């Protein structure tokens, strides 16, 4: 077994047993990144990584280590990293060397992790294919003509392609779960407020949530332990106790009640994806779970609701990208208005501009009630549907994405791209935790199974996912190296 197919748990064991050093595994990953053509990274921080690996090795030698000490990872380029370019995939921030660390970056540094670099992503996390990055599209390691998913496409491709042991991601409408599904890895979007948003460049503040992207559920639990927790610097951070997420992984799931929303298996879902998802559900039945059909009647409205709420929030959040205090400024502005207009028009990409304009329109006088208020009311109904469902079931299961990864460049109009988010948006709108775990293949491309849990049920989700991974080997499959 080579270094890059090992999990965090396995690498940590090897480091403790002196089978290899952090410097050795870090060099191994850096060499692989150098040879890779996946375009998974915007910035490779090789010098910093080697320094961090040396420090980690010293700590391991002195015996003062945690489980994450010396493990190499890829950090989504949406998290501010002091002294390192933080672009959010945008030309606007191509020159932005962050003067401070995001809370998540600080937490991962405290855990003595080794940052290999900053992972590619859709510009400001707006996209479902990673084709909206200023730094070019990322390729899917399973088929380089396919998209890796988005917006955390670089993170997913890095993990699936053996370029990092794990990665961080963020999920506003599916941006952890969908690329995890399309690249065949494990991704967890926790409950809204579980992980600090401080220093995580904001897209839609009431929906954004960070999480781990890993090879296994066990690894996701280990990383979540390091990322979760209250942060006074984030006004929406939850004052909620952080359990040890690894503690319940081995619990039996005998008697678990699984809800299958009939709306998640209707038209638009690819037959082969549906078959793989149902096979996974059968596996759970064999493990002692019972299955119940449920209904989420308003979930059909998740797409219009999300594509009003998120653009409204983004039009406000991105108003700070104005060329005054940081980021791109146009050459020779003739007056202040020219400075704003040209800096923003040159610095922002097509999809970002589109969403800013939708938001600006939906929030403008005379249209606010018809769009934003209406969407926030529908959001309440979508959330109520889940409350009703969780009275009867422990977990909701279904597909993550209606299809497997599609061809790069094949989806051109924005609305068709938005429709691919149908199964992931509801969890964000309600603030619920969700996961994607590898559940099979269709035409040699990975298919993910989505788990949605009640608020603060991350331990339960990780337990369910871990039990599935003990019975199946989909998560151990790796793409062929070319």
């Amino acid at each position, binding site marked *: 077994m080579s270094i890059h197919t090992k999990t965090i748990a396995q690498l940590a064991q090897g480091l403790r047993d002196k089978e290899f050093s952090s410097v050795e595994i870090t060099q191994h990953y850096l060499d692989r990144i150098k040879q890779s053509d996946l375009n998974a990274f915007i910035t490779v921080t090789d010098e910093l990584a080697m320094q961090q690996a040396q420090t980690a090795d010293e700590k391991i030698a002195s015996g003062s280590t945690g489980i994450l000490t010396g493990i190499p990872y890829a950090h989504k380029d949406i998290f501010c990293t002091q002294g390192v370019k933080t672009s959010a995939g945008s030309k606007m921030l191509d*020159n*932005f*060397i962050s*003067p*401070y660390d995001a809370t998540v970056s600080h937490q991962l540094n405290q855990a003595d992790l080794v940052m290999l670099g900053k992972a590619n992503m859709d510009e400001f996390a707006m996209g479902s294919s990673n084709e909206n990055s200023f730094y070019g599209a990322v390729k899917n390691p399973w088929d380089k003509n396919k998209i890796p998913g988005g917006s955390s496409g670089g993170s997913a491709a890095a993990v699936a392609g053996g370029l990092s042991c794990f990665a961080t991601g963020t999920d506003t409408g599916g941006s952890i779960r969908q690329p995890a599904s399309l690249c065949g890895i494990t991704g967890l979007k926790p*409950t*809204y*407020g579980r992980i600090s948003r401080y220093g995580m460049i904001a897209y839609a503040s*009431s*929906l954004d949530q960070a999480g781990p992207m890993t090879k296994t559920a066990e690894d996701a639990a280990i990383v979540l332990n390091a990322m979760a927790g209250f942060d*006074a610097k984030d*006004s*929406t951070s*939850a004052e909620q106790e952080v359990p040890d997420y690894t503690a319940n992984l081995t619990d039996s799931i005998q008697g678990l009640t699984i809800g299958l929303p009939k709306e998640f298996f209707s038209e638009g879902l690819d037959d082969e994806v549906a078959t793989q998802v149902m096979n996974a559900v059968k596996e759970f039945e064999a493990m002692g779970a019972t299955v119940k059909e449920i209904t989420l009647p308003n979930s059909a*409205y998740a*797409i*219009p609701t999300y*594509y*009003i709420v998120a653009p409204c929030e983004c*039009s406000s959040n991105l*108003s700070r990208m*104005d*060329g*005054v205090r940081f*980021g791109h*400024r146009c050459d020779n*502005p*003739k*007056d*202040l208005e020219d*400075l*704003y*207009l*040209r800096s*923003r028009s040159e610095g922002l990409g*097509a999809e970002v*501009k*589109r969403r*800013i*304009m*939708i938001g*600006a*329109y939906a929030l*403008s006088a005379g249209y606010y009630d018809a769009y934003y*208020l*209406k*969407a926030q*009311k*529908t*959001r*309440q*109904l979508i*959330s109520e549907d889940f409350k009703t469902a969780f009275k009867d079931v422990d977990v909701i299961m279904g597909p993550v994405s209606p299809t497997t990864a599609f061809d790069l460049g094949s989806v051109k*109009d*924005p*609305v068709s791209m*938005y429709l691919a988010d149908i199964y992931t948006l509801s969890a964000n*709108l309600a*603030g619920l935790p969700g996961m994607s775990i590898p559940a099979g293949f269709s035409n040699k491309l990975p298919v993910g199974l989505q788990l949605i849990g009640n*608020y603060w049920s991350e331990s339960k989700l990780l337990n369910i996912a871990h039990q599935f991974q003990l019975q199946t080997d989909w998560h151990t499959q790796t793409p062929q190296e070319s």
Partner: protein
Amino acid sequence: MSLSEQQVTQIAYLARLSLSEAELKDNTKDLNAILGLAEQLGAIDTDDIEPMAHPLHMTQRLRTDEVTEIDQSENFQSIAPSTGNKHYLVPTVIE
């Protein structure tokens, strides 16, 4: 209801974006398609529904009114496009 190119130009201006001729055409088409999607919401009865302000129905925390930030102006201004005397510089607004 459908947005005209003139309205899209006005929306772009509100958002401080300028669009080329081709961008204006594309955006008029795309914005209308997206708003068409949003029209679906008209089918739902939301008369007695409270709008959702926060996923967890939390209220904003308050903290004691004391200075917690240290002066990092030099650090923050080191990445600014143009500064002088601790100010961010922009083209002259008032002569």
